[in-house]
């Protein structure tokens, strides 16, 4: 038998290695780039955290409405931001700023932020821990069962896909476009579904949410909004 010499795979192109061997300046540039690059990301997030905590000129602090940990405010229907995809949060801020998404509170705040600040604050909230299933016992009223069924199975008699088909297993969102739904205050979810129905919110990609919301009854909207505030995943697999 012939034994083959083992050639470990090379992780860098040879030309790049040669360039680096070429001299100390190349190494210094590489180290500086890595250091500054990661430092910049860090600074973004910290700046975003500061904005969220303290606000800025013409801008209320995010925590005033969205909670100290970005958990939202159930009673007022202010949404949970913690753990949402960064791209989703940034898109919403951009669209509040340019008027594509309407909201009397958020529009002036988003306009007061620079593009850089919008990125910072979106990054901050995306980095916070998202919703986790709590100890709250799952209700099994007909309404919560209906909500659970819509979220996990949909209602294909009316061409309504399951919420979780696009918003991720357990409704935790799918990067980068589909926001988390689980743990979202029911008043917020209900208001958004009705806004899509009425056409007062229309910034969903490809009209995907509009198509679904249009087919939902008020009772279905109530049931699914309540379920998503405290979803329970036991018994989904039978």
């Amino acid at each position, binding site marked *: 038998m012939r034994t083959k010499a083992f050639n470990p795979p090379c992780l860098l192109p040879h030309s790049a290695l040669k360039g680096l061997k070429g001299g100390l300046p190349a190494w210094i540039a590489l180290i500086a780039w890595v250091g500054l690059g990661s430092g910049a990301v860090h600074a973004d997030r910290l700046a975003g955290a500061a904005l969220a905590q303290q606000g800025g000129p013409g801008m209320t602090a995010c925590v005033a409405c969205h909670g100290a940990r970005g958990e939202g405010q159930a009673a007022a229907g202010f949404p949970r931001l913690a753990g949402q995809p960064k791209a989703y949060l940034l898109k919403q801020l951009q669209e509040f700023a340019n008027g594509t998404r309407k909201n009397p509170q958020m529009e002036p705040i988003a306009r007061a932020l620079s593009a850089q600040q919008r990125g910072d604050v979106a990054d901050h909230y995306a980095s916070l821990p998202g919703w986790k299933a709590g100890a709250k016992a799952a209700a099994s009223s007909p309404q919560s069962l209906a909500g659970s069924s819509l979220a996990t199975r949909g209602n*294909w008699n009316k*061409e309504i896909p399951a919420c979780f088909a*696009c918003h*991720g*297993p357990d409704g*935790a969102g799918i990067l980068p476009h589909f926001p988390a739904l689980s743990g979202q205050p029911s008043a917020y979810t209900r208001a958004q579904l009705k806004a899509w129905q009425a056409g007062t919110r229309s910034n969903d*990609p490809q*009209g*995907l949410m509009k198509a679904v919301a249009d087919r939902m009854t008020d009772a279905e909207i109530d049931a699914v909004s309540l379920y998503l505030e405290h979803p329970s995943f036991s018994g989904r*697999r039978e």
Partner: protein
Amino acid sequence: MPNWFSKWLENQKHTRAFHPSWILLVVATTIIIAGIVWIPAALVSKAEYDRLPSAALPASEKTSAPTGEIPAAVEQPGFPAPTGPKTIRVDFSPPDVGDLPSGEFGEAVRLGRNIFNDTQTYARAYVGNGLNCVNCHLDEGRKANSAPLWAAYVMFPAYREKNSRVNSYEDRLTGCFRFSMNGKVPPPGSKELIALMSYSYWLSKGAPVGVELAGRGYPKLAEPQQPPDAARGKKVFEANCAICHGADGQGTQVSGRYAFPPLWGKDSFNAGAGMTQVHNAAAFIRANMPLGQGNTLTEQEAWDVAKYMNSHGRPVDPRLVKS
């Protein structure tokens, strides 16, 4: 008339082997025989339809039945079906998921449902890619026009050109594992196949056997006006599909599992799968994609994007691999 032909005709007349008026005779006889076969066949076809269980018919058809008119659900009324009642289309709804049976059989049905929805977990040993059955058979295998299990189950055993023999429903299921799941064939009688058969059987409860149910397979599209084109399809893909399936068609993963399935590449169906046929893929896409927006793409867009999807590399057809 060419010279050789007139010569041959004259020769035939003289030898009395052939006369041109015979052509007329043959054509007339054919028409008469065809008429004798066709009229009774048409009557039988209509009678078979009337004899179907009325519970299986939708309400609108029940009310129109006494007028004696053939309801619109009959395909091509007036034409005899080549295989009798098989092509008569009947509306059917599978039982509600809340009515899952209990006992040992109920356990098999539940396992079948779990395998179907989460093949990656419940039939891991037989799956070679990142897909689940439910990716192409939407709504747990229940959705009409998305190849529902209840419409397939009642059509087996059946001869299939794919393997040139009569297939049981179990055989058909193994084909899904071999090609669409790019995996290993579960042994006949294995708990996975028994479970999937039990689930399909339960979904088909009350459906007539051997009758093509409305919603079977994917609704066949008319031939495209322009030949399917991958370049046009790429544009359709980017505008409608990439948001979920990714710009590279590789799907989107959440914690190591595909939340949106890959459409080509190593984790997708292999080159022997039915979905690699552009007409199948186009029919599925047109009726069901984007999710929740079925029938919104034009038929031409569906053809083009199906062509684009199938213009990419994927695992080889296992029939072409010599072991």
